[in-house]
């Protein structure tokens, strides 16, 4: 990731911690990382660069600071945009269009399947039987092979072309071009992200984000059952919440208490609470039992003490009586609830 890429992820008001952004990209999903990912509106970055080295954002951050586009806060890890940086961001930074749903799909697997499927159908359209398939993992190969055997028909290439075209038309033309040029097919090896970045004078990361945008748009359209890629993508839709957290959430929704659940499932109560926070952060407001976990007196008590922007709230700054009555879990859940309703963000 380069300076220009990081620029798009920063904010003028909010100090953002580089480590949180890094952990999101590397899929180090602690509750704290997820919570701040929520607050930064950057949860869509989860797992997009698992191989990123630790501290890889420090150098791009330094570049932004040197150019006067960013400044550090209390610690060098906290960074926000300067006025000049915000102007630069508004002028140049691009954002994916479909990011809000990225957590609902195994985006990396979807990308692999799409690339191989396009190659296979392209070769098929040109009646080529012998060619080198893209090197992918066994699961992708099997999924695409099964899909192809079931969907193979003389009309398939035309159908796939039509549906890809209609999906890509919903995106900016630059994005559509990038997604197209990254495909591999008959007589067309396809470009690498680096090559495209060079020829378009943008960063490799922004090219990659555009490709994800394209994959997501295509996958969304493929939810229609008559879409040629429907069966290929269907198994890749997933809850953003881990299975273990889903189980805890289901038990709570049936009215069990955290301690009971922990005993039954043989996990620590703390782990069960982390499951719940993870679910609260990653799921829409209506899919989490806030009414059950945040009682009216609790809400009233927090509302009376916690004023001002959410990011300034601190559990340890609460009156002692409140800290005695409510745990950090209650406090954090209240903040998530407020965040999801848009309260506290003036």
């Amino acid at each position, binding site marked *: 990731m380069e300076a220009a890429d990081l620029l798009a992820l920063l904010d003028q008001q909010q100090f953002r911690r580089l480590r949180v952004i890094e952990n999101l990209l590397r899929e180090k999903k602690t509750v704290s990382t997820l919570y701040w990912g929520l607050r930064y509106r950057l949860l869509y970055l989860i797992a997009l660069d698992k191989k990123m080295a630790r501290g890889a954002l420090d150098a791009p951050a330094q570049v932004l600071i040197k150019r006067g586009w960013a400044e550090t806060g209390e610690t060098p890890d906290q960074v926000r945009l300067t006025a000049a940086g915000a102007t630069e961001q508004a002028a140049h930074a691009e954002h994916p269009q479909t990011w809000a749903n990225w957590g609902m799909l195994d985006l990396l697997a979807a990308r692999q399947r799409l*690339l191989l499927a*396009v190659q296979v*159908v*392209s070769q098929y*359209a040109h009646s080529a039987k*012998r*060619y*080198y*398939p*893209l*090197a992918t*993992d*066994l*699961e992708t190969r099997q999924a695409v092979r099964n899909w192809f055997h079931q969907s193979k028909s003389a009309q398939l*290439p*035309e159908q*796939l*072309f039509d549906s*890809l*075209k209609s999906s*890509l038309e919903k995106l900016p*033309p630059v994005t*559509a*071009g990038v997604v*197209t*040029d990254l*495909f*591999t*097919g*008959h*007589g*067309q*090896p*396809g*470009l*690498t*992200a*680096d*090559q495209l970045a*060079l*020829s378009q004078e943008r960063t490799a990361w922004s090219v990659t984000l555009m490709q994800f945008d394209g994959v997501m748009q295509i996958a969304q359209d493929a939810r229609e059952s008559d879409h040629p890629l429907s069966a290929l993508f269907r198994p890749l839709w997933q809850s953003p919440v881990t299975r273990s957290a889903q189980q805890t959430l289901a038990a709570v929704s049936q009215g069990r208490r955290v301690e009971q659940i922990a005993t039954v499932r043989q996990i620590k109560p703390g782990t069960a609470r982390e499951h719940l926070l993870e679910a609260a952060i990653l799921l829409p407001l209506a899919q989490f039992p806030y009414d059950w976990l945040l009682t009216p007196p609790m809400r009233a008590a927090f509302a009376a003490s916690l004023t001002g922007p959410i990011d300034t709230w601190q559990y340890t700054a609460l009156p002692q009586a409140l800290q005695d009555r409510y745990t950090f879990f209650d406090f954090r859940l209240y903040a998530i609830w407020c965040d999801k309703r848009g309260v506290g963000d003036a």
Partner: protein
Amino acid sequence: MLEPLATSLEKVFGFTKFREGQQAALTSLEAGQDTLAVLPTGAGKTLIYQLYGYRHQGCVLIISPLLSLMNDQVDRMRMAGFKRVAAINSLTSYRERQVIMRHLGEYQFLFMSPEMLAQPQMLAQVKQLQLSLLVIDEAHCIVQWGPDFRPEYLLLGAIRTQLQQPLTLMLTATAGQTTRQEIAKQLRSQPEIVAESVDRPNIFLDVEQVADESEKQERLTALVGQLQGPGVVYFSSKQQASDTALTLQQQTGVQAAAYHAGLSSEDRFKIQQQFMAGQLDVICATSAFGMGIDKNDVRYVIHYHLPADFESYAQEIGRAGRDGLPSVAILLYASGDEQLPLMLGQANRPEPETIHRYYARPQAFSEDDAAIALLAFYKRHGISEAAVVNLFSRRERERNRALAQMLKYVCEPRCLRQNWLAAFDEQSPAHHERCCSPAGMTPDFEQLGLLASHKSDPVAQDGDWVARLRRLF
């Protein structure tokens, strides 16, 4: 009674004639004789074990050190019509490995990395298989001592014994007498040797001495701008390969790309395919490039850094001119270039003092360090401290000898080909004007017909994206 070899060849591959060396190797194997085949790149070494596997019951186990290449090989075998083929190495996902292990007995061809085979559980499984043939691919890796050295190759002799000395085929593109003897010794075998000359008369050999790094870069830029492509430039460092690809593209207007082990497999695939499709003029590569490449019309191979030994140099220049047309291999040398291979070698070589301290307290060392990882490997396999010290000093002598030989080539005043072939114990034809140009002489590339007459077509990006999408289908 088995059908004649020629009949099998026709049935499986549709060829009517063997290439040089293939028949001799197969005949030797059919006679139950371990065989060391020293055949140049592009001579069709894989056909030997493919055909043997076709003719005999059981599994052909192929040990290959090149991870990135292994999956290519499997794909090629599948394309050639062999269905029961699989590869296991450290890049294989856990799930995929489980699937392969469940069906282990069903494969006709099994590719494995040496470190995978060295694992006791894996070895136990492999012992249960009925092996028709054991193939040691790139067998010169047993003696090479570069940064890519695979210590596991040293265990192959012991492993082979544990597997009850199956019939063994050792394959390499280049090996002089010393290397051949070492391979045989390490594998505890007395193989029949089938060797073809490493000489490639259509490759003009050129050594150019430059004053320093910046002059070298200038010379490279001039050569790439001037010579007919496609070409390959070899580097010892990934970073330099990437940087140079970029500079060449900007300064000379050629289509250039980098290729090295640091790229994702998708990017490697695309670059390879672009190169094959004639969309690239030049590839800036590390030694990771080349093995899977079936491209006959490579016109030049330039070495930007001094190769560590003649074996790798011969392999790499052997990728030029497979179509038999005039081609050139250029080695750029600035005095002091030998420091780099020396350093790369030393980085992996612990001092006797370190070896001693490691053996006394292994837990005090981190295996993140390549040299320590190597020591840990030896210790785990029960090799004593004294033996390890001995091994390292022998290796170092071997490596220094190989490097000195390379330097002698660079300084050769009369005939490079003679010098080169002498390293492989071969006689050279008499020097002539289309043979070579030692340092200090100026090669006439125009006279040799090596100057560029056309550039490759850049990757088509014309038309709008809908038209480009249309072309796919």
